């Protein structure tokens, strides 16, 4: 039985899917090749290492915020726990980074499970509690026995990580994160998450198991910052509570994600790359007012470009939404 309009819709769909897939591949390949070329062209490895870190952090935050509708202002908790888990496993248990890193990711997921009861809270309460929970994590780790977590001096991992190795490891983490988030944005879980974000009660009545869906999104969002903390710990060879739980980590993550635009995969990537460059250029020229510029930039972003770069573009051209990953 022929269905002319049905067929034309199907063609239309396939056409759109094709464009999407091409753009997604384009994104993946350009990101991969750019970063692969960094060591080859002798560009600054440290700068690009951190750029990849922020791309991953901002993307993971997007899963929680853009996709699920939660703003965890204590996001750094996962990062810090990941950093310390890696440090302890590498230093105390003598594990290689290849084993320690997935364990750190797992630690992040376990922490997210511990924090899961907060998911039923509304925006403001959730944000505030998240901040408090991060504070509890930091204080608890500071107060653990010194033999375990190094007290106020922190832990030295003692593994001689070559910067290049850490660079490639970070790249691996970033690519896995981007692939996961790309999958999520098109998957049924992703749709369920967005429905719950828009109207949880209505989603419930449409047959979505709200609690379970939220939890899955939350665990995914927690996994990657934990990995980032772990890789960074290995790269710098030291962790301590001040740097691993620094509120600036959450601040940059949030700002970079918002600058690019929440809700798409490309948004946080664009935001992180752009803001990293901005940060680098300003740091070189005006090292003292770096923080001030970050704060003012945030305010200007919120006031004048609240949807970020990609978000504003899609606002102006809504028909492109189906094509842009």
């Amino acid at each position, binding site marked *: 039985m022929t269905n002319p*309009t*049905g067929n034309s*819709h*199907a063609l239309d*769909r396939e056409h759109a899917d094709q464009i999407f897939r091409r753009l997604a591949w384009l994104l993946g390949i350009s990101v991969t090749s750019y970063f692969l070329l960094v060591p080859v062209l002798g560009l600054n490895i440290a700068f690009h290492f951190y750029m990849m870190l922020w791309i991953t952090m901002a993307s993971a935050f997007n899963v929680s915020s853009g996709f699920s509708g939660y703003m965890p202002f204590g996001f750094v908790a996962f990062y810090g726990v990941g950093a310390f888990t890696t440090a302890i496993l590498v230093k105390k248990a003598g594990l290689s980074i290849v084993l320690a890193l997935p364990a750190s990711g797992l630690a992040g997921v376990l922490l997210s499970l511990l924090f899961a009861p907060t998911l039923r809270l509304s925006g403001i309460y959730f944000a505030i509690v998240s901040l408090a929970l991060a504070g509890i994590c930091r204080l608890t780790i500071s107060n653990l026995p010194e033999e375990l977590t190094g007290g106020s001096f922190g832990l030295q991992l003692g593994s001689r990580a070559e910067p290049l190795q850490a660079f490639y490891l970070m790249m691996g983490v970033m690519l896995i994160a981007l692939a996961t988030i790309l999958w999520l944005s098109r998957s*049924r879980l992703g*749709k*369920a998450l*967005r*429905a719950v*974000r*828009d*109207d949880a*009660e*209505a*989603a*419930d*009545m*449409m*047959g*979505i*198991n*709200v609690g379970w869906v939220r939890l899955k999104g939350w665990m995914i969002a927690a996994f990657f910052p934990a990995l980032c903390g772990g890789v960074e710990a290995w790269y710098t060879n030291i962790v301590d509570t001040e740097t691993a739980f620094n509120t600036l980590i959450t601040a940059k993550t949030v700002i970079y994600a918002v600058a690019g635009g929440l*809700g798409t995969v490309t948004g946080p990537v664009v935001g992180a790359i752009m803001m990293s460059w901005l940060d680098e250029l300003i740091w070189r020229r005006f090292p003292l007012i770096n923080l001030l510029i970050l704060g003012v930039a945030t305010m200007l972003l919120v006031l004048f470009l609240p949807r970020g770069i990609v978000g504003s573009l899609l606002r102006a051209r*809504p*028909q492109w*939404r*189906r094509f842009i990953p």
Partner: protein
Amino acid sequence: MSGTIEVKELVKRFGGLTALDGVGFSAEPGQVLGIIGVNGAGKTTLMNCICGIYRPDSGSIRVAGVDVTGRSPHEIAHQGVGRTFQIPRVFGRMSLVDNLLVPVLDRKLPDRQLLEQAEAVLEQMRLIDLRHNHADELSGGQQKLLEMARMLMPDPKVVMLDEPFAGVHPQLCRFMIEQIESMRDGGKTVLLISHDLTSIYRLSNTVIAMNQGKVIASGGVADIRSNQQVIEAYLGD
């Protein structure tokens, strides 16, 4: 048994207010049960109890022989109960197609089949050209149609419509009436809350009139129209 809904002695209190005071009725597949009454009579509360947003204090609700009293909304949805809302609750930042996919995300069917089904339903509701727009870009009337489309996707046995005609222009009303008739003729059990008496009289097989949390009359359209209590409480004259 399939699609029959039976409500017995349903009670729901909010603090000191008794919103439902022993409500009971039943409705069969292929039938429309109209529900009328003044604002605050308990009509929406009744629907909210049936679909699981509120947990009744006592009484029972059975759909197709299964007791769904007090179960969670998503479980009840899986029993084949669908609904629309007085003020549309669409997923604003998702496309129309995605809105329609939400109730069927757990179906073990390939994506392409679900997409085809969604497009077919959107076609039926004359929303097909807007299918990629975000739901919050639609007008109020279009959102009501979207809700109806979304409700129909999982092919529910029981459909509950809460004031579908409120604030909708006459042409769209007529279209909605056609849709409701085809739901009824397709073997669904339809519960319809409305103040639009013309539509109620035209569509309903049975009508129940509610007042202050109780069912004050139940019967065919003619019986209800001539029922003295109903006239005093609601219809006026």
